[in-house]
Each structure stands twice: as structure tokens, then as C-alpha cells.
């Protein structure tokens, strides 16, 4: 039995919004990234997993249980971080965390103190006055504190600064070692790349691919911009390395898109004086274009 099974679900909101005939599953102890651009249907899928909405057709099951009919039983073992976090504004952070702990039927705060420490969270203030990042941390604490077997996270790092994003990645990796099943949605490839075993990619409500992370990474290109000490070096580099193009506006700079040839690109550049180096990773859309050779339809 898979931890999470999604089979042929359709939830049509009209004008091609929603999800259409979507199927994938998450094995026990697996960390699955759920990737897609904004509005692709990630949250719609997750709401069906949480039993908040019913699919028009198809089935969603967690631990073999129907997600809508038996949502209460499933939630006993489930941690959830919503994509748009909203709390009861009149409460303070600490009050809220202990309220959620009680709602979850926990006798104490569970892992909350440890998690708060991990994220440098001071939850004593009023929720209303908290920044987006602080609220996100509280959401994360609430999702993990009862030590659930299955964790569903909708855009978990939004609002977090890079340091906290790293701490979050560490948390996911340590949960993975503890054998947790995690489904994590994102529109950013990198955070999924660092943590997930597989990724399901969704676009316009339809599944594009479910692939192991290595396969997706191997097909991925980076945009490299190297600035040399003078124009001559740049033009010589371009001659040697065919993928590179010299910039018209900045003649000392060359730009290239590289995948597997990254090693060659860097080693050839090493023969010259490099004054600056920029690496742009592809957006998801660019990634799709490369991976599937244009619009799949």
C-alpha cells in the first residue's frame, strides 16, 4: 500500500482551471516534490488530499483511506502546512501553537519547542503583528509538532529568508531519515532538488511527468554568464567553446546555456582572467521547454 495514492482525479473549476485526470502516488518513506508554476493546480490537488474538497471524479487515498470520507482518521497521522497561512489573529503565537496542539489531541507541545529553537522562532507576540516569515515558521512548527507519519507542505519556504530556507531543507532531510512520507509542493526547482527523491510535475492541471530527481537534474540547464578581463579573451573563449555567445552590450561578457558540458565551460574559462561569474538557474517554464521540447500539447 502506498502512503498517498492519487488516481485519475478531476476537479474542474471551468476555463481550464483545476486539475484533470491527475494520477501519481507517494511511497512510504518517500519525499516527493510536487512542482508546477503558479496556478497549475498544486493547491487544488493538496486540498483534495486534505479532504477539504471532493474530486469531481477519481479517488484520493492516504494510507488506503478515502481522503474526504475519512479525513478525521487520516489527520491523526498527518501534518499540514497550507499555502496561504491564516491564523486566529487575536491570539499570540504561543497561544496559537498550544491551541493547535490541543486540537490535535496532544498532551503537551510535542516537538514544538525543539522546532521553535531550530527556526529561531520567538512566538510570544500577537499573530496579527507578525511578518510573513514568522507566520510561516509558526505554520511549519504546527505541521511537524505532533511528529506525524505523513507530512503535506504547500510551498513551505515562501516568506523564509535563505538561512531559514536552509534550516528547512535540513529539517526535511532529517525527517526523511526518520522514515517520514513527505509531499511538498513548490514552484522553485532548487528546494525540491535538495530534498526530494522524486518529483511530480504539473502544468495547467495536468501531470507532465513523475520522474526520479536525478533524471530531472540531468536534463537541466543553467545559464552561465562569464565576464573576462578584456574583450579579446571573450572573443577567444567564444571561438573555443561553441555554445557561448559574446554579449553585444557588454563585449567582455559571454553567455551560454549549459547542461552536461558545465565542466568543459568552466575549465576553458580558467585559461583566461575571469572577473565575474553569474549562474542563473532555469525557471520551471524554461525547464519544461528544454525537458519536453516545447509545449507538450
Amino acid at each position, binding site marked *: 500500500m502506498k502512503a498517498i495514492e492519487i488516481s485519475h482525479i478531476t476537479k474542474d473549476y471551468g476555463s481550464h482551471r483545476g486539475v484533470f485526470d491527475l494520477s501519481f502516488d507517494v511511497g512510504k518513506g518517500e519525499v516527493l516534490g510536487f512542482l508546477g508554476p503558479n496556478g497549475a493546480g498544486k493547491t487544488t490537488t493538496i486540498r483534495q488530499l486534505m479532504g*477539504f*474538497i471532493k474530486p469531481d471524479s477519481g479517488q484520493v487515498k492516504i494510507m488506503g483511506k478515502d481522503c474526504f470520507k475519512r*479525513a478525521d*482518521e487520516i489527520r491523526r497521522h498527518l501534518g499540514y502546512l497550507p499555502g496561504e497561512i*491564516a491564523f486566529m489573529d487575536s491570539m499570540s503565537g504561543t497561544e496559537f501553537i498550544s*491551541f*493547535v496542539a490541543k486540537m*490535535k*489531541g496532544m498532551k503537551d507541545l510535542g516537538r514544538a519547542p525543539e522546532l521553535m529553537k531550530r527556526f529561531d522562532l520567538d512566538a510570544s507576540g500577537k499573530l496579527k503583528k507578525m511578518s510573513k516569515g514568522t507566520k510561516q515558521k509558526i505554520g511549519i512548527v504546527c505541521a511537524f509538532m505532533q511528529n506525524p507519519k505523513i507530512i503535506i507542505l504547500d510551498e513551505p519556504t515562501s516568506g523564509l529568508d535563505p538561512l531559514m530556507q536552509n534550516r528547512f531543507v535540513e529539517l526535511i532531510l532529517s525527517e526523511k531519515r526518520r522514515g517520514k512520507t513527505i509531499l511538498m509542493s513548490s514552484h522553485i526547482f532548487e528546494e525540491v532538488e535538495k530534498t526530494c527523491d522524486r518529483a511530480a510535475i504539473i502544468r495547467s492541471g495536468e501531470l507532465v511527468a513523475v520522474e526520479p530527481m536525478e533524471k530531472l537534474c540531468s536534463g537541466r540547464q543553467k545559464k552561465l554568464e562569464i565576464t573576462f578581463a578584456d574583450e579579446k579573451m571573450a572573443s577567444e573563449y567564444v571561438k573555443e567553446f561553441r555554445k557561448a555567445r559574446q554579449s553585444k552590450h557588454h563585449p567582455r561578457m559571454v553567455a551560454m546555456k549549459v547542461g552536461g558540458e558545465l565542466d568543459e565551460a568552466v575549465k576553458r574559462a580558467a585559461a583566461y582572467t575571469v572577473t565575474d561569474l553569474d549562474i542563473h538557474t532555469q525557471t520551471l517554464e524554461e525547464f519544461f521547454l528544454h525537458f519536453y521540447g516545447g509545449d507538450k500539447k
Partner: protein
Amino acid sequence: MINLTLYKREWKANWILLVIFMGVLTMYATMIVSMFDPEMGDSLKVMAESMPEVFAAFGMADVGQTLLEFITGYLYGILLTAFPAVYIIILSNRLVAKYVDNGSMVYLLSGPQKRGQIVRTQALFQITSLLVMLVYVILVIIATSQILFPGDLEMKAFLRVNVGLFGLWILLSGVCFLASCIWNDSKMAIGVGSAIVVYAVLVQMISQVGEKFENLKYATPMSLFHADGLIANESQAWITCGVMYGVGILCYVAGVQIFKRRNLPI
């Protein structure tokens, strides 16, 4: 059956609102009771004669001679229905629709409770808070009456009137709670609930102004509450009172059932 954690949290979040409304009702109740004057013929009556339509609209025409008739006429006609109605509109929105609208319903549904349990808790909270308001108002009126006019209030008849008043509150709160359970949007829930309540109160006021509009009383649920009939212990008044409780509870049940089955955009 219900969730105690949530029930307590609602008390903590809403007691101030309840206290404010009880404060306003205390003011009106003590004021009206103290204006009763068994010896001199009452001063309100003189006022009523000077502007009969206005007093009629508020259900204050033909107010009788006894303290009880005086209280029910001036207090139970509009003050103890319209003010609690405002409380009901605000509270029922807060209890369900607002959580769905801003998304914090996720955290009410974060534990191993069924949706039904959560929404039943909210319904029970609304009903008990109204009960607290009712008991409080009853005690204020009794206390004021006993201090100013000892022994004048016919206690049993007075309590019968309050059974009817609570039926009306149950009816109005049931309708508003149902609206709160149906709509995702707080504005919509509050709009529909208050439109129904304002309609009911307005039509009742118009129906009381003159004979021309008297038949309008059949178009408003407010006329199901017969204070005079309950004082006289008439069976028809008890039947309409039962209808209020019945329809109100039906609305609560429908709200719970709808909430259990619907899609939540949270």
C-alpha cells in the same frame, strides 16, 4: 460530540462582544422597568399618545396596565429582538464563515475531529451564549422589578414570555448560522443573514403601524412571537412558539449537514 478546546477558545474570543450587548440591554431593561408607574398612569403612555405611529411601529401601542404588560410591551416588542439580532448576525459570521473566508479553518480541522464535531461546537456555542444573554436579561429585569416594585411582577407569566423570546432568538440565530455555513465569503454570509433579519424586523414594524398593513404580519417570522398570548397561556401562542424553536433548530441541523458535505476553499 463537541470539541471542548474549541468551545473554550470561542468563549475567550467572544465574551467581550457578549458583554457589550448585555451592557446595552441592561441599560434599556433597567430604564424601561424604572419608568413603570402603577399609581400615576405612566409617563410613556403620555408620550405614546403624542406620537402614536412611532410607538406603534415599535410595538408599543396599547401597552397594558400591569408591570408585566408594561415590560413586555415596551421591552419585548423591539428592544429585546432587534439588539440581540445584531449580536446574532455578528457572532454567526465569526463562528463559521469567517474561518473559511480567511483560511484559518485549516487549523480548526487540523486534528482528528470530524467536520461535524467542529461545526456542532460552533452551533452549541452560539446557542449557549444566547442562553447566557437571556438568563442575564431575565435576572436584570427581575432584580430591577423587585427593587422598585416588590411583588408586582407575575413571575410565571414573565418566564413564559421569555421562553417565547428565546424561541425567536433560536429562529433568527438558526437562519444566520445556516447562512454562515453555506457561504465561503464572509461578506455574503453576513449579508444574507442580516438581510433576512432586517427584513423581518422592518416588516414587523410596518405591520404594527396601522390596520392597512396589518396583514403584513403574516410575512414576517417575528409575529410568531406572541408575548400577550404567552402571558395569557393561550395554546395558539405556544404553537407558534414551537414553530420558532422547530424551524430554528432545523436551520442549525441543516447548517451542520451542509458544512459536513461541502467543498471548503481553504
